[in-house]
């Protein structure tokens, strides 16, 4: 069952997104978006692919000592093709997009100067507001501000605050 791999899903997502575990899957997590994303990751891909990707990540993680700290290096190996197929690499990139946009992407490549287009479908209202794009822009989801009047006249907290902590 893919949900048995939740800890590895979070760890792999830390490597893929550049956000700390506490920012994307806090201990006290009233929203629980990680479960929504893991389910979508499983359902949107061909049968078993999500689990195969997570098994591969688990193997690399465990072999590297089973401790946090080198998630980016591990996903970097996988994205470079270590034990992963092109379809699995694309799936991992789709997962990055899902974390950032809260939407599942359909990627169309072509030979134009833009190399094609990407369309996406929002998973849920919460996935939209939880999208990491709003945090990397040091802001809030459009339509869901957590700030007070006039905040826009001052510089925001540093990016590190958004990458490391739930906002």
């Amino acid at each position, binding site marked *: 069952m893919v949900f048995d791999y939740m800890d590895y899903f979070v760890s792999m997502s830390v*490597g*893929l*997104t*550049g*956000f700390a575990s506490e920012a994307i899957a806090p201990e006290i997590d009233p929203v629980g978006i990680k479960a929504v994303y893991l389910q979508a990751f499983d359902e949107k891909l061909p049968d078993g692919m999500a689990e195969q990707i997570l098994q591969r990540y688990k193997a690399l993680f465990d072999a590297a000592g089973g401790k946090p700290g080198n*998630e*980016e290096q591990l*996903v*970097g190996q996988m*994205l470079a093709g270590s034990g992963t197929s092109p379809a699995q690499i694309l799936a*991992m*990139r789709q997962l*990055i*997009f899902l974390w*950032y*946009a809260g*939407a599942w*992407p359909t*990627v169309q*490549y072509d030979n134009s*100067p*833009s*190399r*094609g*287009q*990407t*369309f*996406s*479908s*929002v998973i*849920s*209202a*919460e996935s*939209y*507001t939880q*999208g*990491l*794009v*709003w945090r*990397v*822009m*040091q*802001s*809030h989801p*459009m*339509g*869901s*501000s957590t*700030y*007070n*009047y*006039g*905040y*826009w*006249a*001052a*510089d*925001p907290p540093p*990016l590190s605050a958004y*990458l490391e902590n739930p906002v």
Partner: protein
Amino acid sequence: MSIVTPPGGFDVVIVGSGISGSIIAYQLGKAGKKVLILEGGPPVPKSREDYMQTFFTADAKTPESPYPPTTQGASGTDNPLGQPDPATLNTPRYTVLQINAWQDPKQCYFVYGPQAATSASDPQMTFAFGSSYERVAGGTTWHWLGTSLMHLPNDFQLKTKYGQGVDWPGGANFYTQLLPYYRAATEVIGVSSDRDPMVDLYKTFNVQPNGVYGPDYDFPMPGIVPSTNDALYQQNVTALKIDGIPLFVTPTPQGRNSRPGKRRQCAGNTNCIPICPIQAKYDGTVTLAQALQTGNVQIQYQSVASNIRLKGNQVSGIDYLSYDTQTGPSTGGGTAVGKRYVLAAHAIETPKLLLMSKGNPGYPNGVANSSDQVGRNLMDHVMYLAWGLAKKPVYAYRGPLATSGIEAARDGAFRSQRAAYRIEIGNEGWNWAANDPNTTLADFVFGQNNSQLNGDSVNAQGTALRFDPTLPAYSQLFGSKLATTLNDVYIRQLRLGYLIEQVPDPDNRVTLSSQYKDRLGLPRPQVTYRIREDYVRNAFVSAKQASTQIFKALGATEYTREPQNAQLSGPKASATTFRYQGQNFIFYGAGHIIGTYRMGSSPSDSVLNARQQSWDHDNLYMVGSGVFPTTATANPTLTIAALALQAADNLLHDLG
């Protein structure tokens, strides 16, 4: 809810409960007059949370996306966004998603004829109309920006002063007469603005301090604080001139609360369009509720006006069709009767209703249409968008969508040669211009280049646009490099919007489709829309040059994308692209649907007199931006509200 006719009947029947209809209903209701409003759309929801959920889950977050009827459903090969067939809906309306489906009446509510031009530089080229509206209680103010500027005296005398377009009835005197109503309109809307910058601005247009809303006036609330993005412009544009006019930045008066009051204080949701989640921004439902609370105003929802009856040359009733569900059958109808009638259904549905009403003896071309001007002179502020990246962070995507503008070039001698414009400074990065944040995200995750940040793109000034020259083209990033790259881009994004004045063209018009109908069996609007005049096209050239100068002064890199050559035929025919002076331009709608039942000083070339009263039927009034003879240079809502207040006074005078 059934209509309970008061003893003595209704004094006034109003079609439409947007800002104009609601203002008139409130003014009349306060004075003890009995009013019935027919509203085609559903009631104001108990909580706007339902609309918010619809917005959050919409794939394309367009101005209409939160509101019924639903704009997007299950997709198909020929209908990627799953746009509903307007023939299946009781109150379909035009949406911006329909612009690129303009040749397909199964997706697009407006019906367009085939492309008339043989080249994209032919002035006869026809386009999709760029702007949309809502058919719900509260109307299109659900998705307005909140900009609350006055027009200028010269806006009302364009013909006399510059030889362009037409004058408003009374010319410059129109401004003087409207001043007390402008003042009252800022109270209705609850405008936040500081007086001094407005006095300074209007002085540059030869409007003296007392001419800014009247003597001793100040706004209901202090101005909304400008954004960090605005500050960059404030510091850098003052060395520039457009057509000899020095540029400066003006904080924009806005219909949103800078203080907690009857509505909540703005929390900077950066989402004024399509929906303010906390109603810090004014919308028509505020005034509608006040109107209903007078006890003298009734509203009949889901009742679509379908025909105007005449007895002699007086309106004697308005027929309507009711429905229970958006895709269900009509469930009845009736005729609403009053002493006076007001059409407040905005600039597409109002002329449609007049044109549909052609069964009355003596008026075969429709009600109020002896001039043959109904439906003509359809206009918008056609928009030129420009976008770029600042050298240093400006922290885009924070605050109201726009908090300042460059207003200085809204009038001047240049206006005999080219259309005027105001420049809106956007706070929402490349959201509108390039569908960000998603486009930039997809580019750096999947190795694409639709943002021009991740490939080998070069701008018109010859500057390479790849954001990080140390990275290869079409990079596919992940982890901390992705996060920091996206951050670096998003917080630097700049966007300018030029609201270009359009002039009246009688051939730009709304007629009735002979072939296509809605679910109620009413004909759909057939729209013909062109931008033929060099006067307007010259403003695009000017706007492009001005943007390049402004971004240069800011030290920013311009990313404005010149559109591909227009495709003239077939299902993918270009909707809003044209070629002028050897350059391709694409225009956007400002959401300002203007004209189609204009005021004038002669019944031969206008639908309404200066009282907004039909020349043909003196118990019929019309309000909204449809009455404007020209677009002028300010966003129209404050003027719409002022004119509605003026029309209410005229009605009260008539009713005695």
